[in-house]
């Protein structure tokens, strides 16, 4: 092998090895992808939500109320209730499991540090919001959220997500999903206030509460009561609804087209 070729190969080897040897930890230590300071909002509050699954009947009133309140485009949801049919194989008994999903307003939100223009940020009261005037629509946050809580709103062409209805909270109202919940399954409140309903419920059920995907270290602030641990991660389920085809061979099994 001639020396020139060797020098190039050497460069290539150094190049790949160099890139490989930068450990993620040192990068994180340098402050890249670290949580930026929170801004706006009331620093004396920390909003959170507790969802009592025992009270959820899967009526999707929250889904509809949120959709109307926040003018989400058809097919995109800030909150939705996933529903599963669970069959006990030995007995053949069938039950339905309801799982309301929304933004978890994590204490370590992975969507915030990725935003290249600080359009998405966490307020001091814990609510994660998007400044749609500043958002460039890069969709980095949509990919970064492990909960699929974000989407690109086709009307605004910017990132969109649940805000705990911050505009309603500020006016002394409850979020649309909480207000419309027929079973009273959703409880929102200030977790820094020890006398708030959510604080009392968290205190009472501390050992039974679960969050979604705890392994992602996002520290979600939406807590589920009456949760089955198998549903805290991606459910090991049969994707039944994709299989429902019409006479023309096209999917008809879902209403939420995209």
């Amino acid at each position, binding site marked *: 092998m001639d020396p020139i070729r060797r020098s*190039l190969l050497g460069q290539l*080897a150094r190049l790949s090895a160099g*890139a490989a040897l930068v450990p993620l930890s040192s990068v994180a230590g340098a402050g890249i992808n670290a949580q930026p300071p929170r801004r706006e909002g009331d620093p004396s509050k920390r909003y959170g939500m507790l969802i009592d699954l025992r009270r959820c009947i899967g009526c999707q009133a929250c889904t509809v109320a949120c959709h109307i309140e926040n003018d989400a485009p058809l097919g995109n949801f800030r909150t939705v209730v996933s529903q599963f049919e669970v069959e006990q194989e030995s007995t053949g008994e069938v039950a339905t499991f309801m799982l309301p999903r929304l933004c978890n307003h994590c204490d370590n939100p992975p969507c915030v540090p990725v935003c290249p*223009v600080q359009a998405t940020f966490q307020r001091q009261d814990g609510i994660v919001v998007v400044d749609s005037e500043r958002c460039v629509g890069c969709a980095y946050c*949509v990919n*970064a959220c492990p909960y699929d809580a974000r989407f690109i709103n086709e009307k605004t062409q910017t990132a969109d997500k649940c805000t705990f209805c911050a505009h309603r909270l500020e006016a002394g109202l409850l979020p649309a999903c909480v207000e419309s919940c027929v079973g009273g399954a959703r409880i929102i409140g200030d977790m820094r206030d020890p006398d708030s309903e959510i604080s009392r419920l968290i205190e009472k059920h501390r050992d039974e509460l679960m969050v979604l995907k705890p392994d992602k270290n996002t520290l979600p602030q939406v807590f589920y009561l009456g949760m089955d641990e198998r549903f805290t991660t991606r459910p090991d389920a049969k994707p039944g609804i994709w299989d429902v085809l019409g006479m023309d061979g096209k999917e008809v099994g879902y209403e939420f087209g995209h």
Partner: protein
Amino acid sequence: MSLVTEVVVPRYGIAWYPWAVQYFFLIALSYSTLWLAAPGLILGKQAWMPTARIALLACVSTTLVAPVALLADLHQPLRFWHFYGYPTPWSWMSLGSFILPLYLGAVVLLAWLAWRPALKARSRQNDGWFSRVAGWLAWGEWQAPRAVLALVGLGALIVSLGIMLYTGFEVAIVKGRPLWNTAWLPPMFVATGVIGACGLVLVLNRISSLRSPDTNRQMLAALVAACAITGFIALTWFLDGVNAVSGSVAAALNSVSHSAAWRTTAIEGGIAGVLLAALALVMRRSPARRRAMGWLLGLLALHVAWMFRWVVLMNVQSVARNSAGFHDYHVAFGSYGLLGIVGIFGLWLTAVLLIDLFVPWREAANDPRAEPVSSAPAAPDISSTSASPEGAPSHG
């Protein structure tokens, strides 16, 4: 035991469109071709000059077009200035938005310095508009010392490391997509980028009619090395995952075992990669085979580099995170899909043709003392003789 069936779940679309694939593909070709041009252009190795000329053409054209694809992937492209209005040092994407213009500037400056002597020479010929444009592009009679070119080249190489790091880690830090969340992804992007770059230089060597045998030889050697490194990285990633529960490998195995489409992709990717490495290894031994088949191998290498990015960026987004199964993703016909893909390739072709039309890149010399065109010493005879009837008649 219980059987769980999904009854109601929303359908989640993809967030990054094929534009992203085009950007990651072109920018990888860009920094890799820059490094392939380095031995000849920056270090002054004469045997590498034919390769350096082609690599420089490839580098400039891909560097110019890549940011267009990136811009197109924004849903609010006119707000791109927000990147500079609100600098965000903790975001990889924001860091990238500052590295990218630096890199683009360095590459364009490097190419300009490298092409200037030949541009000046053409401006002195009586070739109508082409001479006039060459004169404008050369901009003055001054002669830049070789050290300046080497320094700018060195700067471009250093900034290119920033591009490699940011494009890799931007994706690799996303915990929400386990398949991306591995430290092996950034080096894999670089290694497959070099594969694609070798392929592009091989193809351009053929279709530009330069047909430099040196370039074929060098590129096949580099291709073999890049394939070996890619294989090594893939294997390490896999062993890492098998031995120490890496979410990335587990997610990959899960996808492959549950989806026929992923199985097909894995098999196709594996075959293409192994075939490429094997053919490169066999062909590099014979000059005749290199000349006859080099460009075909180049096309295969480009396919491998592009497909890798397609699978990583598009297919991974179709792996559901909160529902069962896989999201259907069909490439749309419009600008979010096929039109975008074809359009970017078309734009790249336009860039290459425009450069070919107005810049005598074949004569780009690294040594300003050697007056270009007539006596460019490094230009192998074939390049000047076979190139002129093919590429030159339109402009002398």
